[in-house]
Structure formats: C-alpha cells, structure tokens
C-alpha cells in the first residue's frame, strides 16, 4: 500500500493504492469513475484513454503510482454544470455514437488533440484518433464530429444545456 496525491477533473484526491494497481483500476474500482472503459487491457483499443498532464494516455498501461502528483482529465470532467463540452455536443449531433463503449476514449482523444492544435486538418484529426478503435460506427462520423467541434470552439458556442 502507498498513498498518492493527484488532481482528477479539478478535484484533489489523496488515496491509498496497491503498488500493482493500474491507473484504470484506481479510476474505476476505487474512485467510481466508470466512464473510462477497458476494452483490451493492452493499449490497443484506446477505450481507456484519459488526459494526464496534457497528454492522452492509455490508463490501462499506466500504473496508479505513476500518476502521483499528476493532473488528470477523464470523460466525467468534460460536462460542466449540465453544460456539455462542444466536443460531446458534436459527437451527439453527428451521430457518432452507437454502442458507446469507445466514445469516452474517442472524445478524450479529440479533446487532447484540440487542446494542443485548435485547427487540425482532417488528416491530422485522423492521426490524433488513430489510437482509438470503434467497431460499430467507424471513424468518419467521429472525424466529422471533431470538425464540427472545432467550429463550435471557434464560435465560442458552449451553451448546449443538458435537456436529457
């Protein structure tokens, strides 16, 4: 057992962890942040993607102790007071969601990309999402969503109230 401190979605956590615990297990089993999904457990599918200190990482390949002192964003951190992130809104509107299991990872990858490069080309978006597998919809609609999100972010539109 060891104690680590980290920030997840702007909240400070001080938690006891087992040394052999993966970051995804800390998020899901210990902190109840089950929006981060595990599809393969070996860094192939990207369903467990989170942002750690500004970089998108597979949380199944990071040990929990390695996250000590880090700043993490998960899918739960995107919605703000019932207001969706423009990326989430775009994914809904573009019909990018079917079974949904890949979606948290895809949205986080999109966010990691747009946080760094606000105006990527379609090719750059493809590259940015290349670590995420989807088996239902395929990738075009997710890329469409990313392009729509870029427009929303440019226009400063962030008023998509939760009416669901």
């Amino acid at each position: 057992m060891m104690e680590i401190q980290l920030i997840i979605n702007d909240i400070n956590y001080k938690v006891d962890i087992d040394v052999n615990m993966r970051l995804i297990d800390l998020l899901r089993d210990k902190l109840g942040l089950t929006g981060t999904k595990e599809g393969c457990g070996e860094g192939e599918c990207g369903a467990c993607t989170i942002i750690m200190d500004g970089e998108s990482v597979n949380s199944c390949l990071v040990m929990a102790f390695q996250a000590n002192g880090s700043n993490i964003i998960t899918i739960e951190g995107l919605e703000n007071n019932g207001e969706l992130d423009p990326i989430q809104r775009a994914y809904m509107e573009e019909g990018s969601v079917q079974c949904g299991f890949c979606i948290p990872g895809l949205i986080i990858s999109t966010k990691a990309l747009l946080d760094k490069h606000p105006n990527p080309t379609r090719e750059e978006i493809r590259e940015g999402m290349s670590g995420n597998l989807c088996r239902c919809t395929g990738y075009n609609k997710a890329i469409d969503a990313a392009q729509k999100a870029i427009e929303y972010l440019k226009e400063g539109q962030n008023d998509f109230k939760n009416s669901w």
Partner: protein
Amino acid sequence: MTLKTVGKSIIRVDAYSKVTGKALYPQDIYLDDMLYAKTLRSKVPHANIKIDTREAERQEGVVRIFTHKDVPLNEHGVVLKDHNVFAADKVRQIGAPIAFVVGESEEACINGMNKIKVEYEELPGVFDPLEAMKEGSPKVHGQSNIIYHYKLRCGDIEEGFKNCVAIAENTYTTHMQDHAFLQPEAGISYMEEDGTLVVAVATQYPHYDREEIARTLKLEEEKVKVINTNVGGAFGAREDITIQIHLALAALTLNRPVKVVFGREESFQAHSKRHPMVMKYKTGADKDGYLQAMEAEIVGDSGAYCSWAMNVLRKAGVHATGPYHIPNVKVDSYAVYTNNPFTGAMRGFGATQIPNAAEQQMDILAEKLGISPFEIRQKNIFKTGSKTATGQVLLESVPLDRCLEELVKRYDEFLKLKNVVDETIEEGVL
C-alpha cells in the same frame, strides 16, 4: 404527407449518457458485498476430462467452485441443446467452460483457478470440415458431424450446362472471424428480497437468457429477471449464452452479488465466430452472356457447437446465386461439427461469405465470354419481377440495375486514378 421523424436528423436517446460516460455497462456496476468470479476453460480442443477442485477450494478467499455437478440440467443452446453449462466428462473445443471460481477478490479467484486439477485424456480431433464429413472422422457429438443439409433444386442443371459456352468452376474458402465488439463480456447477478434471481448482462436475447437460466437451474421463469444493460457492441456474438447461467447459479447458491468481467482474450475464447466456408462452385453462361446454370456445394464449419448453424447455412444456400437470375440451380449446403471454436451469428448471417464465390464466378465468366464485368452483371442481375432460385418473385424495391449504372460511371474514374497510381509505383515513387 408531412413526416415528423423520417428525413430529420434525430439525436439518439442514449447519446447523452454515452458521451458523458454515465451509461452503465455491466462492468460498471458495483454492488455492496459482491463476490468476483473467473471461468476455468479448456486448454485443449478434444479430450476426456477429470476435474479435482479440492485443493482449489481451500485457497484463501475462494468461496465456492461450481462445476457440472452443480447444474440441474447441464445443457443449453439457441437451436440444439448441445452446449454444456460446464464440461462434464468431455471438452470439445479450446475455451469450453469447465469451472466457475467465485471468491472475495479477482486475485483469490485466479489463485483458486490455478489450483484446479484438470486431467486431460486427449482425443483425436477434427479441424477441417470436409474431413469431418467423412465416415471415419473423429466425432464431436453423436454418430455424425453433419448437423444440417440444405437442398435447393431449381430446373435441371444438366440441361442448363448443355446450353453454356462458358463455364467457371472453382473452390473458394473464407476464414473465421471474431466480432471483436469493444465491450468484453461482463455481468453481475444478485438476489432480490422476494427471492427473484437477477442477472444483469449485455445481451442480444434477454428473453432467451431468462428461459435458459430457468430451464438449466430448474426455476420458474417468473423467478428470474434478466436486465439488459447498455450493450457495448454485439454483431451476433451476444446471441449465445456465455456467463448468464454461471452468474445465475452462483448468486442463487451463495445469496450474494457475483460479478464477472472478461478480458479480451477470454472474450475471444468464449463467444462464437463467423462460419468459415468452403464453397465449390460451377456456373455457366450461354453465348449471349445469360447465366444458364449454377451448381454449388457449400460447407460451413460450425466448430464444436451448433449455435445457429442451420439458419446460417440455409441463408448461405438461399443466397448462393448471388443477386442473379439463373434458371437452373442445384445447391447443397452443409453445417458440420469440428473441434474448432464454435461459430454462430455474425453480421450477414451466412450471406456475407457467398459473394466471395458468386462474384468471382461472374468475373471469370465475363473474361471467358470477352465481355466486361459490368455487362454480365447487367444482363443477369435481379430486377423487379425477377424470380429467385428459391421461387420468390421480387415484386418491389430491387434497384440493383441502378446501382450498377452508378458504378459504371465511377468505375471509369477509378480506372484513371488506378493508372496514375500504378504508373507512380512503377516509377518507384511510392
């Protein structure tokens, strides 16, 4: 008429819960006082087995190990009841479930699983469906490996082939394929206060699951509730039972919630695959390019269990001609047991494999006749009013000829592009 919904872009009802990560899949459900479980699976494709769980039961944190002895009726399956809930004295494929280890933690379950002794007395296996059809082959279940034979007879192929100037004859094979849905199998079971047994899983058939749980555990169906959570992809692979009965048995016996989550590798081992097919085809066309006869023998590898074998091989047989009018047709399709991983439903359900054969036959015939691949298709493709080899008259919505017209236009553009690419490759640029 003004339509309220058709033609409009509607945001799907579950999109919000999925883009926010709030949607619950079975692995996302955690209950107080819950136990975990792991499934011990066969490591060999065909063997008599003996199981000894005594040492495993003594491992710290292991609560109970379930085997075939605990199941009142040890058989299930969507069509034939040829699956065992747990292998009893014989395993027929790698991955067949042998025991379900329930413990206080996943680690305890794994420790327990590693201490189960399985004695395998290996038997000769059969892995080629054509071999499996032969009389002397090892038998997977019963006296014959042939599960199903579908016959389609239309006209007289001997007469039909007499009128042909071009004949294509070839054998085509397709491979096994996994659905690889993104959410590996997971589930949780528990007892409600009034004695109702609840199993929460991601499934394509909650009603079948309920019936199978009740039948195998000898419960009244009214006492069993199957909750379908969000389903992380399925594509046919969640039609057969995987964890449902194991979970039900454990919660019923232990009166505590029990959770199981598969990793990717176990997911591959546990569920069905797409049927590999061997398709022996002979197709003939007359001097004007009209198809006159087709003969096909299609063999589908069902693996160790039937699942939807007859439905899939029937569909393959029904679609054997592809979308073409042929007056004389003889098709025999077979579903065959082997000791390979079992196969079942997967997108297309037997119709997907067929174009690999039927379309290549069209291309070969076109080449032999000296006409374009489009011309042979335009001449023979189903149109409104066409009669299929099974006798169905297609009365509406058959826009295949229009589809072909569009393709012809774009094919020329494609060829131009292809020439540029080919030249570039030749120049060594790519």
